[in-house]
């Protein structure tokens, strides 16, 4: 009796057939996985890709020029241009506005250039001081002392119809696009 040893592993012919289907199965799964990977990776990286080419930055109104006395530095707040429904109060951002004279301003980010803690302005000594690691800046935002390696970040500004507009939308960090927009200042008191 010639019985077919179809299900024993010793049969070469059926092995290659089963082996072929196994390999085909793995290939199909690989294909499905790579097709699915495109939307998954795209979704995961969407917060990066959207921000490309300054996509997050836009001009937002700050306050009227008349709110800021000449020669003084005042706190102002604005709403971040990119808002999601679950953001709550986190989209409100503070910044320091220094009116040098007329329509000449400096708008500083609240975040210390060291690690981002909120700096406070002391008009009497003309210094910004950071509560975290002791960074200090002069009234023009240049570095005075402490661990920061550079001056305060500045928002680009323009004056339209008596309103100060600033270009904002990203958390100011040493590597952010905003840091490149603002020019580096020589480390000296003004």
């Amino acid at each position, binding site marked *: 009796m010639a019985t077919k040893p179809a299900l024993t592993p010793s049969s070469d012919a059926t092995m290659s057939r089963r082996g072929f289907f196994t390999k085909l199965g793995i290939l199909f799964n690989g294909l499905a996985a790579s097709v699915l990977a495109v939307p998954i990776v795209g979704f995961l990286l969407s917060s990066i890709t959207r921000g490309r080419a300054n996509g997050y930055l836009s001009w937002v109104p700050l306050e009227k020029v008349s709110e800021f006395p000449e020669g003084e530095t005042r706190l102002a707040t604005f709403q971040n241009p990119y808002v999601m429904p679950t953001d709550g109060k986190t989209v409100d951002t503070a910044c320091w506005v220094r009116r040098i004279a007329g329509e000449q301003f400096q708008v500083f980010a609240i975040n210390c250039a060291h*690690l981002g*803690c909120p700096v406070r302005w002391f008009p009497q000594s003309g210094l910004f001081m950071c509560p975290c690691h*002791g960074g200090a800046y002069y009234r023009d935002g240049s570095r005075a002392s402490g661990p920061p390696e550079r001056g305060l970040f500045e928002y680009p500004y323009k004056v339209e119809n008596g309103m100060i507009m600033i270009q904002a939308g*990203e958390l100011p960090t040493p590597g952010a*696009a905003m840091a490149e927009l603002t020019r580096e200042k020589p480390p000296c008191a003004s």
Partner: protein
Amino acid sequence: MRIMISKIGQWFDQRLQLAAPIREAAEHPIPRNTSSWWYVFGSAAMTVFILQIVTGILLALVYVPSGGEAWSSLQALNHDITLGWFIRAMHGWGSNFMVAIVLIHMVQVFLFGAYKFPRELTWIIGVFLLLMTLGMAFTGQVLRFDQDAYWGLGIGASIASRVPVLGPAIVKLMLGGPIIAGATLSRFFALHVFVIPGLLIGFVCLHVLMVLRLGINEWPMPGRIVKRATYISEYHELTKKDGAPFFSYGAWKDMFFAAFIIVAVAACALYFGPFGPTGRPDPTIIQTVPKPDYFFLWLYALLSLLPPSLETPALLIGPVLVILGLLFLPFLSGEGEKSWKRRPIAVLTVLLIAITLGSFTHLAGTTPWSPHMNAWSSDPVPDRYIHDSSALERQGALVFQVKQCRNCHSLGEKGGQRGPSLDSVAVRLAQDQLIRQVIQGGGNMPAYGKNLSPAETTALVAFLETLHPNGQAPARDASRDVALSDEKESALKP
């Protein structure tokens, strides 16, 4: 009744077939001398982890991971929901205990040489478990969405942004957008509740499985050397000759300690209460002094004390080196002596790291590097410094306060410690040097030239010149007297 129970048991076991492997695991032989209180930290870490899962699920019944509502839902847990404060406190203290126990467990394993052959992979998985525990601690701190969480995220983003080239992309990936907002909280919630715990459960199972398969590390004896060729047979001989079943020869100590830890967490929760939340996560409130939770305080101190030029390399390369060092440790010393009595460098390394981390943590409690923001308006100049002083000197004391010098310099042990204490500054610096230092700054002091009128500077320096201990003369420039007397003489000459 008994027969009934055993019949039901048999019915299940016939289908599950788990009784035999469980019995085998519970009764696997362990070397007798490993039934020690030193061997309880691994099971204690797992106990706290289970406690964290339970309390975490309970918190998730109420907590809302939304930028607008997380803070209020924590307030509701603290104040409105019966025993909500206790569950929050248990979870918070459980987290502190877990970090501490995992670290103690690691030190014990290191000092007992348990990472050596054949338990290298158990150690490596343990390193990942440590990293995940720290990851849980950080993400958990973010979920307590308050001011500390908000600015802590800012610090994390600032560190991440320093990575060359990829920095800005990493920041946006971490924050889920361009700023710290609702999307940031959502992704930290996903990490804290799904991703990291899932990985932790998987890795803990592997870790425990390997302890069961390879056997618990025997008590290290000085002179008993680990060799790849002979270790396994020696270990089996040891457990055969001088072994005992884990249950209950070793297990009762684990059980006692596990119960003790749970009671300790509950006691801390009951006595100290929940952590925060501190102020609302509103970035327009800038009167805040953000500080991390205790397990990251050492890092907070390190970031203040490193020279600025070293900071970025230390932040980016340091952690990589530490993690690689831990991962490669079992390959560098996979054989040899296990006992801490014959491994002085291992003991000294542990002591050095412990003292360093301890000192940094202690420093972060007092933050001598931060200006005291309110010192200028809240700490008065001590009476004795303006007693019998001239009008000019008193004016100088006023300038000293108003110009916020006090925020960085202490007088009578009150005020900032960023700069040196000025109680005896007149002994160190002569008049000219004082003027120069005030106007030009230097040595980490800002220059005040633009913010002081000549009259203010004169008054301030006159005050500073009075600051010297009784009986100790102020510093003076000797050449100045000579120069002045020469001037007088030449003036007298006709």
